[in-house]
C-alpha cells in the first residue's frame, strides 16, 4: 500500500502533485465557461458505466458488498458484541458447517456474521475518512491556488511538511497518542489523506482562476468565497470525484494495515483488517476461514473502487478532449 499510489494518476496529475507547477501553464484545463450542471455530470458518469464493462462490474460488486454488510445482519442474526456469550454458546475455531456457514473465529464469533459487522466498520471509516479528506483537501487547494502569493506559499509548504511523513508512521503515532476509536480513526486517516487532493485541486485552480468567466465574476464584484465555491470547485469536480473514489480504497487499505498492527478499532467492534490480523496466528494450522474471507472482501472492495475510479478518470479526460 503506497502512500501515494502513483499508478492511479496520469502524467498530468503527477505533474500537478509536484510542488512546482509553473511548467503547467500550457496544460489544458476544463474549458467550461459555465459550471456544468449536476445533471451533466451525472449523465456523464452514467454514460461511463454504460460504456465500460469493468466499471459496471466494479459498481455491482461494491453495491453487493455494501448490501451484504448493511442488510446482511437483518436476515442473518448473530451475536457479534457479547464475547462472553460467544464463548459460552459456541466453540472457537469451528470449521464451516451447517450452524456456521463460515465457521467460528478464535473467540467463538460466527465468521459470516462477523464479516458483515466488521465490514460496516471498514466501509464506514473508509467513506467517512475519504469524505473528510476530500472536503478539507478541496477547500485547502482551492483557497491556496485562488489567492496565490504568500497565502499559496504558506499553505503549500504546510502540505509539503505533512507529505514528508510516511503516512503509515504518522497514522501509527497519532493512533497511539490519541487512542483508537472509530471517530479517531476517521479523523486520523482523513488527516493523512487530504494532502493529495489539496495539491491536485490547487493545480487545477491555478489554471481556472485566470479564465475569463472567473475574471468576469470578480469584475462584477462577486465575493471570493462565491468564486471559489461556485465557479472553481465545481469546474474541478472531475479531478475531485476521481480522487475521492481512490481515497475510499486507500482509506480501507490504511485501516487494514492499522488493524494488522493491532491498532484497529477496539473490541468489541472489529474491522476486516483486525479480523485478518487475529486470524494470522492460526493460519499455518489450516484455519483458512479465519483469514481468506476477510482478505477476499478487502481485495474485492478495493478492486471495485479502483475499477470505478479508473473508468471515471478515463471518461472525464475524454470529456476534456471532446470540447
Amino acid at each position: 500500500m503506497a502512500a501515494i499510489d502513483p499508478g492511479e494518476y496520469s502524467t498530468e496529475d503527477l505533474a500537478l502533485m509536484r510542488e512546482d507547477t509553473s511548467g503547467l501553464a500550457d496544460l489544458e484545463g476544463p474549458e467550461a465557461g459555465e459550471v456544468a450542471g449536476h445533471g451533466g455530470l451525472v449523465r456523464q458518469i452514467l454514460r461511463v458505466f454504460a460504456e465500460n464493462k469493468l466499471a459496471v462490474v466494479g459498481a455491482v460488486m461494491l453495491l453487493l458488498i455494501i448490501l451484504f454488510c448493511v442488510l446482511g445482519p437483518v436476515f442473518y442474526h448473530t451475536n457479534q458484541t457479547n464475547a462472553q456469550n460467544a464463548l459460552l454458546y459456541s466453540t472457537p475455531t469451528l470449521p464451516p458447517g451447517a450452524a456456521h456457514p463460515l465457521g467460528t473465529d478464535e473467540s467463538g464469533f460466527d465468521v459470516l456474521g462477523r464479516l458483515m459487522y466488521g465490514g460496516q466498520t471498514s466501509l464506514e471509516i473508509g467513506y467517512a475518512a475519504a469524505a473528510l479528506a476530500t472536503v478539507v483537501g478541496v477547500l485547502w487547494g482551492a483557497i491556496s491556488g485562488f489567492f496565490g502569493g504568500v497565502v499559496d506559499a504558506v499553505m503549500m509548504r504546510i502540505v509539503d511538511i505533512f507529505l514528508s511523513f510516511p503516512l503509515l508512521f504518522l497514522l501509527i503515532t497519532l493512533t497511539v497518542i490519541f487512542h483508537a476509536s472509530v471517530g479517531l480513526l476517521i479523523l486520523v486517516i482523513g488527516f493523512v489523506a487530504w494532502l493529495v487532493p489539496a495539491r491536485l485541486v490547487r493545480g487545477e485552480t491555478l489554471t481556472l482562476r485566470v479564465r475569463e468567466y472567473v475574471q468576469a465574476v470578480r469584475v462584477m464584484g462577486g465575493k471570493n468565497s462565491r468564486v471559489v465555491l461556485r465557479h472553481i470547485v465545481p469546474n474541478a469536480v472531475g479531478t475531485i470525484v476521481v480522487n475521492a473514489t481512490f481515497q475510499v480504497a486507500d482509506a480501507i487499505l490504511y485501516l487494514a494495515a492499522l488493524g494488522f498492527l493491532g491498532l484497529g478499532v477496539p473490541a468489541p467492534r472489529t474491522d476486516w483488517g483486525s479480523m485478518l490480523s487475529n486470524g494470522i496466528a492460526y493460519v499455518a494450522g489450516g484455519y483458512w476461514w479465519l483469514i481468506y474471507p476477510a482478505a477476499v472482501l478487502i481485495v474485492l472492495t478495493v478492486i471495485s473502487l479502483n475499477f470505478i475510479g479508473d473508468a471515471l478518470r478515463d471518461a472525464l479526460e475524454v470529456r476534456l478532449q471532446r470540447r
Partner: protein
Amino acid sequence: MLYYFIRRVLQGIVVLAGVTLFIFVLSRVVPGGAARGALGARATPGQIASFNKINGYDLPILDQLWFFVKGLVLHFNLGYSYKNNQPVAALIAGRLPKTLVLVGISTVFALVVAVPLGIFQTVRRYKPEDYVFTGVSFLLYAMPSFLIGLLLLLYFAVDLKWFPIAAPSATTVGGILADPRALVLPVLTLAAITIASFSRYMRSSMMDVLTQDYIRTARAKGVSGRTVLFRHALRNALIPIVTLLGLSIPGIVGGAVITETVFNYPGMGLLTYNAALNLDVPLLLGTTFVAAIATIVGNFVADVLYAVVDPRIRYGKR
C-alpha cells in the same frame, strides 16, 4: 540550474523545520503529559513535578522548543525511551541501516523489474500478455501489503520450504547481506506493490511518448522500431519515473513497517511496531521523525535528478 538547486535547498530546510515543529507539538500534546507516559499511571503529583522540573517540562513552551531544537541539532537528541531505558537516537541508529538495506534493495529490484515490464507491455499492448500483467497489477494494488507478505510466507516458506520462515536476524548489515536467501521474501513483499505501480506507470508513460511527433519523424526517417523504442522513446519515458520514485519514497518507507513486522526483520519498522505495542511515544516520535527526514532527503535527490535529466527544467528561468 543553480537557482533551482538553491531554491530547492531552501524549501527543504523550511519543510524540515516544519516537520521538527510538528514532532515537538506532538510530543507535548500526549494526553496526561510526557511524565505520565514515562512514570506510569500511578505516579504521584510530586514525582510528576520533579520529572517535569528535571526534563524542563515546567519551562515556558518557547523555551522548551528552543531546548528541543538545540538538543536535536547539537547532539541529535531525539528524547529518551523510558520503556527501553535507552536514548531514542541510539535505538534508531542500531536499526536504521538494516531498513535502508531492505528499502534500497527493494527499490532497485522494483525498478529493474518494472521498467522492462512496462516496455514489454507497451510493445505487446492490447494483447493477452498486456492484460494479464495489468490484471496482476490491479490485484497487487488491492491487496493489503501484509497479506502479500503472508501469502508469500505461507506458500514459499511454510509449504515449499524454499526460503527460511524468519527474516535475517543478524545484528549487523554485513550479517544480513550474508544470508541472501532469508532476504528474498521480505524484498519481494516490499517490492510487489512498487512493481505494480511503476510498471503501470512506465507503460502509460511509454504510450504517451510513442504518440509524440518526433517519434513519427524518426519512424518516417526509416529508423528501426527497436532503435526508436530504446533510443528515442525510452529516455523520455523514464523522466516521469524519476518523479514517481521521489513520490513513492514515503510509501516504501511506510511499507517497511508492515514488511518488517510480517517477517520479524529487525529494522526501524519493527522498532516502530514494538514502540506502538508498548505505547512508547518518545520512540514512535523518533522513528517518525527519522522516516520523515529520509523522505525529505529522498525527495530532494529525486527533484535534483529530475532537473538533471529534464533539460526543460535545467534551462528554465527558475
